[in-house]
């Protein structure tokens, strides 16, 4: 750069940034914060996804295809059939079930493998001879994955007891597997031992296949698929890994979108500070124009300033983001507290491509925020701007038509379906609604101010006159807070709606007086028919409903649906489930009646009255959908079937959960005592009152949303910083005017009151608009984003008290910020405000 260019660069780009050092620093900090939050959450998600992927990969080793059944498993006779296929070089049978660890409220994956075959399929297993005298193949030997050993606090030689049915089954830890082997919490044992001791005789859950070289994987996959019994599918390890990631993708995507709100708000803050800087520097721009600086040079210099701010902020943000990711991962885990990734403990993996993308995003956000003001600066009418007293800025003119057009486009986007399970159109619609609102704000502000009644107070008269006259400029300073407050309102409405709906749903689906839970879908802990009979015989018990959790495989779905067998009829379904729709016409009356969750209805594209075929175990059954119910428990879809019908179809009499109804006058505490005294084996299980289950569920809910509250608060903080920055900029621009007011006799406190009134009125306009826009966005979140991401519907509830508290706080903060900015700007002798004239 030549010396002349360097001088010009300093005059046009770095000079103004240095001159407004405080605001420049604020913009840098805000961009840094936006980039840091976005990158931090992305890195945590990336680390979690990478770990999930590695964990899924570690299951399948070097296999090319995986034959997979439901958790109920399939007949082991399929294994030799597969192993003998000419294209198959190696087949590795696996028993894979969840077991409950006795004495702890935790479960563990138990994997039965053929060590010799598995070692060829997964060299990383590398089981060495144990240092103890235990034989790896002994009937009581298990190996633990490092994650399981760490979580359970067990070492080689220790005893591990798991529950099978009601029986405790003990093993000795023969060794800890190498870290590169299984990454999830797992115990590994000989396959024969697993079938025998874990109640899986004659069953396998999976067969991993390595194909001979030169064989077409797709062709073999098609051939094997044709020979598999119902409920068993063949897939590739890659597809399985993708599926493992898909299950958490919606959550990860939503969290990333929320983290980007801070950057989005930051861009608006840069926009408002730059816009106001343009207003303040109009005479300077006019002078430069008069001296021969072209419009293009003017735009380039303003954008260069934005790029410097964005680049500096983004660079700091990348460093801070890596720090946040590391701290977040260590403090809250891979899911930042939501409980999606239990059992994995990923280390931070810094993806420099992500860091680069966020650096560019931060820089681009600042440049985008500067673009409009830059064009405005270039269009400053030199002759007019050089005249004294003219501070009107045509560039911040809100474009009402553009705002309405953006809203119209957002409406169209809302009609679009999810893209690969992600509500991308919904997110885009939210962005357009917010940007459209910013465009429409000047018109709305003018309208609202026109409705204000006339007052006698002179400071208030001046304040309203000023706001009416500067609606365009004033609303520019509102854009950051409008965006962040709208999103805060939207999140508050969505979370309240979700929480209230969840609470009401829990009340509905927990009709019994006490719940005894033996285990989840794939756990091996269960009650048998005798246990249920014993429970029913207790003196306090009037009735026991047995619940069995299993899986239902449906062709086309990679993950089986959850199957819940419980006593249910068409007459009592509405009392046990939150029914959203009921079949009016039953297409195939002979088909087995079932009720499916909203997620299942979405995944299968089914409505009430439809018929579909699914496989329970290895039996294909035709089901008739008698109703669709709301389910916040199973994101991947659930199906409820009558317990008797389930037993008839499967012969499975095991029970995972028993619902107990008390006799009239009986006491639930007495019942709990009775269970402990008379059925000590059952007392080991999870016995809960409905209130406890509700409390636990809501606690988990609150923990899940804790990180979202934090992200929202930061976004609103950025919005408030935007108000502070732009208010102080405006006050500085109006120093002469405020000075004159002091000259003509306005008391210092009256000037303060006037500024507070302006700030408060502006804040009130922002709050009113934020409440309206936030409500619209909340409806998009509830009816589009959540529905498409998680397949959950909910009723809308407005947290009025919370919203009022937010609103009052924000208006007060805006008023105080204005007074504070005024004090800072006018703390010097008032005479200086009109010094240029005296």
């Amino acid at each position, binding site marked *: 750069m030549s010396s002349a260019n360097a001088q010009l660069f300093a005059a046009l780009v770095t000079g103004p940034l240095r001159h407004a050092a405080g605001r420049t620093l604020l913009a840098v900090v805000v961009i840094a914060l936006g980039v840091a939050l976005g990158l931090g959450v992305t890195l945590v998600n990336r680390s979690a996804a990478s770990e999930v992927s590695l964990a899924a990969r570690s299951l399948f080793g070097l296999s090319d295809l995986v034959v997979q059944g439901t958790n109920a498993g399939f007949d082991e006779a399929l294994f030799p059939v597969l192993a003998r296929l000419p294209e198959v070089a190696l087949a590795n049978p696996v028993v894979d079930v969840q077991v409950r660890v006795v004495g702890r409220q935790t479960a563990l994956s138990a994997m039965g493998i053929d060590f010799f075959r598995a070692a060829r399929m997964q060299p990383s297993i590398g089981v060495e001879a144990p240092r103890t005298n235990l034989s790896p193949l002994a009937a009581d030997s298990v190996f633990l994955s490092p994650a399981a050993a760490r979580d359970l606090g067990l070492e080689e030689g220790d005893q591990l007891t798991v529950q099978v049915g009601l029986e405790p089954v003990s093993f000795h830890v023969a060794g800890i597997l190498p870290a590169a082997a299984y990454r999830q919490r797992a115990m590994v044992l000989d396959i024969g031992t697993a079938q025998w001791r874990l109640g899986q005789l004659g069953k396998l859950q999976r067969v991993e296949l390595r194909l001979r070289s030169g064989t077409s994987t797709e062709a073999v996959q098609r051939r094997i698929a044709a020979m598999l019994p119902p409920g068993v599918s063949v897939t590739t390890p890659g597809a399985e890994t993708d599926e493992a990631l898909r299950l958490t993708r919606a959550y990860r995507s939503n969290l990333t979108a929320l983290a980007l709100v801070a950057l989005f708000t930051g861009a608006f803050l840069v926009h408002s500070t730059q816009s106001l800087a343009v207003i303040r520097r109009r005479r300077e721009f006019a002078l430069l124009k008069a001296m021969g600086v072209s419009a293009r040079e003017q735009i380039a210099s303003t954008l260069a300033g934005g790029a410097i701010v964005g680049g500096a902020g983004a660079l700091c943000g990348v460093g801070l983001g890596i720090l946040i990711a590391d701290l977040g991962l260590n403090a809250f885990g891979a899911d930042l507290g939501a409980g999606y990734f239990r059992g994995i403990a990923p280390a931070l993996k810094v993806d420099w491509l992500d860091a680069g993308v966020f650096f560019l995003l931060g820089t681009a956000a600042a440049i985008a925020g500067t673009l409009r003001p830059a064009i405005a600066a270039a269009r400053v009418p030199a002759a007019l701007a050089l005249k004294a007293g003219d501070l009107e800025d045509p560039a911040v003119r809100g474009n009402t038509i553009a705002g309405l057009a953006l809203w119209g486009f957002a409406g169209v986007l809302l009609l679009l379906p999810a893209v690969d399970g992600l509500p991308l159109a919904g997110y885009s619609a939210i962005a357009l609604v917010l940007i459209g609102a910013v465009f429409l704000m000047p018109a709305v502000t003018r309208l609202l101010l026109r409705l204000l009644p006339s007052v006698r107070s002179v400071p208030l008269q001046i304040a309203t006159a000023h706001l009416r006259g500067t609606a365009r400029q004033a609303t520019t300073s509102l854009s950051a807070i409008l965006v962040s407050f709208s999103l805060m309102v939207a999140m508050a409405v969505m979370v309240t709606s979700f929480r209230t709906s969840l609470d009401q749903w829990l009340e509905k689906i927990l009709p019994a007086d006490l719940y005894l839970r033996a285990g989840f879908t794939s756990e091996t802990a269960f009650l048998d028919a005798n246990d249920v009979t014993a429970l029913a015989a207790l003196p306090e018990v009037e009735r026991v409903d047995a619940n069995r959790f299993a899986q239902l495989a449906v062709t086309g779905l990679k993950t089986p649906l959850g199957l819940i067998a419980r006593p249910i009829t068409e007459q009592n379904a509405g009392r046990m489930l939150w029914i959203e729709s009921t079949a009016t016409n039953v297409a195939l009356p002979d088909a087995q009646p079932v009720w499916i969750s909203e997620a299942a209805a979405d995944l299968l594209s089914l409505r009430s009255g439809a018929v579909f075929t699914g496989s329970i175990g290895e039996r294909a059954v035709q089901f008739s959908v008698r109703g669709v119910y709301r389910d916040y428990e199973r994101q991947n879809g659930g199906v409820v079937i009558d317990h008797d019908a389930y037993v008839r179809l499967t012969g499975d009499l095991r029970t995972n959960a028993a619902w107990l109804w008390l006799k009239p006058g009986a006491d639930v505490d007495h019942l709990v005592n009775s269970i402990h005294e008379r059925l000590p084996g059952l007392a080991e299980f999870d016995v809960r009152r409905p209130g406890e289950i509700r409390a636990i569920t809501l606690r988990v809910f609150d923990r899940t949303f804790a990180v979202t509250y934090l992200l929202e608060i930061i976004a609103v903080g950025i919005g408030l910083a935007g108000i502070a920055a732009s208010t102080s900029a405006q006050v500085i621009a109006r120093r002469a005017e405020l000075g*004159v007011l*002091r000259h003509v006799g306005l008391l210092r406190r009256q000037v303060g009151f006037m500024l507070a009134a302006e700030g408060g009125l502006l804040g009130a306009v922002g709050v009113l608009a934020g409440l309206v826009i936030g409500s619209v966005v909340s409806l998009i979140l509830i009816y589009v984003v959540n529905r498409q991401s998680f397949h959950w519907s909910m009723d809308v509830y407005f947290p009025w008290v919370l919203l009022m508290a937010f609103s009052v706080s924000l208006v007060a903060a805006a008023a105080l910020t204005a007074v504070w900015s005024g004090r800072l700007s006018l703390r010097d002798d008032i005479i200086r405000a*009109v010094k240029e004239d005296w």
Partner: protein
Amino acid sequence: MLTLRQVRKSFPGPDPARPRPVLAEVSLALEPGDYIAVMGESGVGKSTLLNLIAGLDVPDSGDVLLEGQSLAALDDDARTLLRRRRMGFVFQAFHLLPHLTVAGNVGLPLALNGMAGTHADDRINELLEAVGLRDRRDSFPKELSGGEMQRVAVARALVHRPAVVLADEPTGNLDPESAAQVLELLRAQLKRDGSIGILVTHSAVAAATTDRVYLLTRQGLQLQSGTTTPRQE
């Protein structure tokens, strides 16, 4: 009556121990209806003198009295209220509030003094009539020419019948024709209301429209032309 008694003022210099003197023992006594001009080189303290008279600054020693009331004895609020009721200002850059109409700007001192309704409207109209802008009553400042804006400023300075009007280079931004109009208007209104007028200017033409001209120097205030010498106390 406006009286300045041996007013001294200095400001901190590069060496905090040695303040830079600006005004050295300025004394002056003006009666209602007096209209004077103060001339002097840039930096000699003309602005400081006006600030002290307006009560926007306080002297290091000496006193400023308006209608017998010592400004130094008043706190900031009391000085502000005194300014509100008894003073008017005309600035070089007009300093009209851009978002108030012409009538709003002119009526601002009346509103601040609690005068509203028909009385206030009549007085505003009277002043606008006097400055020839009755038909621009509902215009905003950006719709006016420089001369018109300054005439509005003059009307604002006089609308509440102040005891003192301080005008700092009121014609500095105007063409000669507009400047002559404004000066004539200012003098006429001051004389009609019997207000004291102090005009700070570099223009001999402007100064010539006043009763007496004083020259402010480092040594003090000296009468240049006119019939009455400042009372030295």
